[in-house]
């Protein structure tokens, strides 16, 4: 697992996100369905009551409690020891896993562009809202990672990583997920952006990412050519990743079967996610990232 460091010749974020879009992203924040403990006192309420400014309740003192939280004013009046309880505000970790295998480089408009834009938007929102952002690019295992970024200062680093990585090579989703899950700390939201066309299957990989501490969001991005194939005649289809060949005669019947298979595959993925409390989103690289982020992701309450 390589860790990318920002360089001085940072690519500009505006190559991925235009300023207007960024302005609209400023008003958004990442939402977690679970109120989760953060490592630092952040801007978020957590379930844990602790050191914070927001008063929650009182409770009787029991031996061993921190004497700093005893409410001495009440002891003065009632001569009983009560502790002040506060709601602790915690930060949120946003873990974006972006697929950069060769299959993501296909399509017109390219899935690569779409997914990188999406990742940039999510990263932007996270950094702007002082969330902890971990950006991981995976293919045949994790390729590069920017762990635990916080604050606007890291925006160029993020853009540099996204723009500096090309989509190529094989994909090994399970290995990537294993590595990502092992390096994951704290709690938060995990967003996996990929086409999920993995020959060895996506189930075992996703299973590793699903856990109590993290919300899992699965964004499946397909190109328009994958959704509605524009093929005719006798063809030899070559897989861009492993070079596997499939000889087909593109008849309407075959295309029907393809579409049926694709629909079944997508719905399997959705069901798999739903059963495990994850949210699956399907997008086409022909659509606009803006509407996906501003509308759809808000509707499913990934953002607010």
């Amino acid at each position, binding site marked *: 697992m390589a860790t990318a460091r920002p360089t001085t010749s940072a690519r500009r974020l505006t190559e991925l996100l235009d300023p207007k879009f960024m302005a609209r992203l400023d008003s958004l924040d990442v939402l977690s369905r679970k109120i989760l403990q953060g490592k630092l006192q952040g801007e978020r309420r957590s379930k844990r009551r602790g050191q914070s400014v927001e008063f929650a309740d009182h409770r009787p003192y029991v031996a061993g409690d921190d004497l700093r939280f005893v409410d001495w004013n009440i002891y003065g009046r009632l001569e009983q020891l009560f502790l002040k309880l506060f709601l602790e505000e915690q930060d949120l970790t946003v873990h974006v896993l972006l697929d950069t295998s060769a*299959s*993501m480089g*296909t*399509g017109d408009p390219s*899935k690569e562009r779409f997914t990188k834009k999406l990742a940039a938007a999510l990263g932007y929102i996270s950094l702007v809202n002082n969330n902890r952002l971990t950006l991981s690019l995976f293919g045949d295992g994790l390729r590069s990672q920017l762990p635990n970024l916080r604050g606007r200062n890291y925006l160029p680093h993020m853009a540099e990583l996204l723009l500096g990585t090309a989509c190529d090579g094989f994909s090994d989703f399970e290995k990537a997920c294993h590595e990502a899950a092992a390096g994951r700390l704290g709690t938060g939201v995990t967003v996996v952006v990929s*086409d999920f*066309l993995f*020959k060895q299957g996506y189930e075992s990989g996703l299973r590793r990412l699903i856990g109590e501490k993290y919300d899992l969001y699965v964004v499946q991005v397909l*190109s328009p*050519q*994958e959704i509605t194939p524009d*093929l*005719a*005649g*006798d*063809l*030899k*289809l*070559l*897989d*861009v*990743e492993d070079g*596997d*060949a*499939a*000889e*087909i*005669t593109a*008849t*309407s*019947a*075959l*295309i029907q*079967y*393809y579409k*049926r*298979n*694709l629909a079944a*595959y997508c719905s399997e993925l959705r069901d798999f996610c739903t059963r495990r409390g994850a949210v699956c989103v399907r997008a086409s690289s022909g659509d606009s990232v803006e509407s996906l982020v501003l509308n759809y992701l808000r509707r499913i309450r990934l953002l607010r």
Partner: protein
Amino acid sequence: MEWLTPLMGLYAAAAAVPLLLVLYFLKLKRRETAVSSTLLWKRAVRDLQVNAPFQRLRRNLLLLLQLLALTAMLLALAGPVLALRRGPGRRYVLLIDRSASMNAIDVEPSRLAEARKQAKVFVESMRSGSLVSLHDQADYAMVIAFDGRAKVMCNFTADKPQLLAAIDAIETGHGASRLGEAVTVARAFAQGRSGENNGAAGETGARLVLFSDGRIEDLDSILIDSDELVFHHIGETGENVAITAMDARRSYEQPEQVEVFVSLANYGSDSVTRDVQLGVNGDVRAVRSATIPGCQQASDASPFRPGKVAVSFSLSYGGAGVLDVRKVGDDVLTCDDSAWAVLEPPRRLSVLLVTPGNPVLESALRACPLARLDPCTPAGFDAMDPAAFALERPYDLIVLDNHVPAHLPRCQYLVFGAPPGGIDVNAPREIEKQIVVDWRAQHPVLQYVNLTNLFTARAHRLELPRDADVLAEFNESPAIAFLRRDGRDCLLVGFDVMQSNWPFEPGFVLFCYNALNFLGTQLGGAEPHELEVNQPIRIAEVPAESVATITRPDGSDVAVEPDADGTVRFPATQHVGVYAADIPGRPRRVFAVNLADEKESRIEPQREMHFSGTTVAAATQTVQRANVPLWPVLVLVALLLACVEWLVYNQRVRI
């Protein structure tokens, strides 16, 4: 609709259709396309194969078009025809007239070419069979070309290219037209074929299809069923002016002087004026203008009389040569616009007089215009070598006076007294005191000869063969006779002139003159120079090892070898004109072949042919197609389908 070669189509279909499908499945060239993942495609293909094995054939426009094109081609191979005529195969005999009148150019390019064209259309419309057809329904045809004689160009066959080639091979001729031989030959071939072939083709008789202008001489002698013959009439006009006769003669007294007689005939209804030119060896010597009246025919029943006029030329020409007479001005038939005559040089006889001594005869012969007269004794004559005599031919004529030679060389003979042996004439006894009771005063030998006062004391009683020509008779025996035996012409006088009072008669000198003149012309006429069309050229006594070269009027040469008898025969005198024969070591011989046939020069086409007892009218329609082959249409359809398939493929229509 019928199928000519359905089996062929079936075989081809059995091979080609699976081949196309196999080729379709095993297409070698697939376009390579990169996709993000073959995962779903492989599943789709698997599903497709599991669910519908023939799915890929369904609604595949390209394959459908290819199959349709292939089907069209296979159907074309099966040879469908739109049969305008049904029933079993028929047999036809195409009789094509190639006589002189068919050379007329009143139809473009000529009547014969038109006949060939119509015959070809007929052949092409025949139903053709095939080796692999289900049943033999082919039409068979044979081709006979005829003028004076019939020539089989092609025997019965269903092979159209062969028939067409045979029709193309028919050459023009300038002969008369006689159909009888052609009909006989056609019937003989038809029967011969039906005997060996029990199939459908042999059941009905052959039908005769005649392409002619209808000017056929021997129609009266041909018996024909009214439905046996179909007559396709060719020709439009009858306007023609022809040279129908020509004769050129030298005067005997003045051999330099040549008289030429030409007869012109006009077959048109209006009188015409034409120039006639006379040439010698190609140089024009004289031109005469002649007005020829129109033909006369009061009604259909009355005989046809062409307008005729005679033109005569007189010229002085001493050498040998070819006279040609030409009618100036074109008409539709050119082969009767010229005539030729071969002019021999003036000839004087060389005479051998074999006599024991006869001053009267000798002086009478010397009075005649001879090249030479050699007296000879009987002993001297017998001493001559007959073989050398026959080879060298030193004399044209031998006069035998009271001498019976031991051998008789081939020559002309004037015999006085006892007849020689070997000519089938016997003289068993002598008779006495004879006078002439009858003679043929019109015969050239006895012209101006009065035999009334002839008396002979002794004469031989001649016993002549039946073919002898008796010119004068005593009361008991022939007195003068002419006989031809083995190439020898013998003029026999059955008595010794010295035993008669003939020397004192003026008729004796006249007789000698006439006899030499007559035998001289017989000598020259042994091998005629003027021939009719198709009359063979004959040249006798050609050495076995030499080859005669015959030059035709068009300038081409033919080498002809003599047969075992030493005779050169060249029968192919189909065209009018001058034929020359060159034999090494011999002077060139020239033959003039003339049409000189009034019937052939009458070119007016006939629409009805009056056979013996039957009248056949010309077919009103031109040659009708018996069937229409449909394969070109199918091939066209296949081509169009292939084009559409190509278009579809190129436009990458979503299928």
